[in-house]
């Protein structure tokens, strides 16, 4: 009995020590990684959607569908329309863009069991590795912006990737940005002070959605001036 008790205690002790060392080590590794990513990266892509310029034409959605082969029934970007506000004929609508925010601290990346959802250290783009994705849909439930979906063709998680596999590879701007007739979308490198993106961010007031969740999103919105005032 004494020997087995000792066995038991040793076992428990080792287990607990193992767990605590593991978590401390992870904590240290995490804080180091978090600090280094922010400083050394020279490219970090972001996007601005100007809700005052947007006319809700959905050209962005169509262009994205064509270029990125997005099947019917799902979409990587949606323009949500609210309104009309005001009395006829002085009516206006509000348009807001719903697409992946490329969170710096992305919940989808954190919860993915296989590492299929990942953040690209070179560009800050959040992507999905289709070969690793098993379709558990944990990321879809975890994304607070509800922009992820299962692609009915590949059966894997899918969403906006800033056209990384298509337009960016050819040195072009994302399809939605090119297609926008009013130039409501601006895409660029947030680390480059000369970029149109940074200039836009410095000249217009912007907001980001649900920042209180600590996701640090990289999709900025210029808020509509028209529309009703909601308390």
């Amino acid at each position, binding site marked *: 009995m004494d020997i087995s*008790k000792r066995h038991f205690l040793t076992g428990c002790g080792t287990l607990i020590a193992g767990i605590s060392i593991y978590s401390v080590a992870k904590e240290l590794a995490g804080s180091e990684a978090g600090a280094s990513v922010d400083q050394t990266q020279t490219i970090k892509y972001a996007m601005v959607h100007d809700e005052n310029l947007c006319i809700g034409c959905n050209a962005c959605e169509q262009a994205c569908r064509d270029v990125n082969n997005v099947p019917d029934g799902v979409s990587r970007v949606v323009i949500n329309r609210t309104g009309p506000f005001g009395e006829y004929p002085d009516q206006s609508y509000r348009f807001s863009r719903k697409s992946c925010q490329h969170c710096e601290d992305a919940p989808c990346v954190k919860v993915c069991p296989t*590492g299929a959802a990942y953040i690209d250290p070179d560009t800050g783009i959040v992507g999905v590795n289709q070969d690793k994705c098993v379709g558990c849909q944990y990321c879809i439930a975890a994304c607070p912006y509800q922009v992820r979906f299962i692609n009915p063709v590949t059966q894997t998680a899918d969403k906006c990737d800033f056209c990384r596999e298509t337009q960016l590879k050819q040195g072009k701007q994302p399809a939605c940005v090119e297609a926008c007739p009013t130039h409501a979308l601006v895409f660029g490198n947030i680390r480059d002070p000369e970029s149109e993106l940074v200039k836009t961010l410095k000249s217009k007031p912007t907001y980001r959605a649900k920042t209180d969740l600590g996701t640090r999103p990289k999709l900025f919105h210029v808020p509509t001036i028209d529309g009703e005032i909601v308390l």
Partner: protein
Amino acid sequence: MSAFHFDGLVWHWPIAIYLFLAGLSAGAVFFGILLKHFKLGKKAYQSRFIQAAALIAPVTVCAGLGILVLDLTKPLDFWKILVFYNSTSVMSMGVLVLMVYQLMLFAWIGAIFCTPIVQWCEGRWGLVTRGLIKLQQWEDVITGVLLILSLSLGAYTGFLLSALIGFPLLNNPVLPVLFLVSGLTSGAAATLLVGVLLKGNPNGIEVRFIHGIEIPMILIEMAILFTFFAGLILSGGQSQVAAFNALGEGFWGWIFWGGVVGLGLTLPLAFNLWMKVSADRKFAYVAVTASFSLVGVLLLRNFILYTGQMTGT
């Protein structure tokens, strides 16, 4: 908006059943270990209730994993979850726990049923016999590790949902405790139910022992449920909206008050107290009480999963 289909719903009932089965398995193991340690000792393998726990635990955990795999959009790729790990993912760590848990579970079953199996072998298959005897020597270690793993597994079922930060009802620190306690309750209930079905004595020491723990556990579960919703309501904002959406009138409100609180907690509590004073336990009493508890926990899992996804931040 209907009760089972609404905007933003990602995870459906198979996940609730998976969480239910995983918690049930953990609970059955937990009570099996307690029973053996405190009441039965070396002759535990003769108890119908230990046999029930040893039967339920592996069957439910395997069935749960099976459901989880079938619910993937690419079920044939499930092995990738076992090959690729992500230390920040609750699901990934849970799968790790589940694997070690199953291993330890079978080792534990081998250890406690060592004597009858060795007798049955009658000297055939020397390797099996030697292996089992080795297991029996290490039984205390296996039991200790398995106990910790079963508690981790029970809590994991809650952590899996509480990692979903976009839903205030799920992203709640009380949820893992709630799921752990209700998982243990369901394990106890299943052990009792299958035990008496296997013709175990409904008035035996095992039943008395488990019922003795069940009464405080139901009270704790009620207190946790109260804390859970009181906390949400007092936080205000979307948390409050989520709580009122869940508890208010409508399908899920009925499920909560009638199914989870009434059928799953109050009735078993009343029956347990009654059995305590009347001293004589009959098959029907034990079976009905256990079935009510089980249904209650299953409803709780579905209730939390669906109402949790109903209200986002």
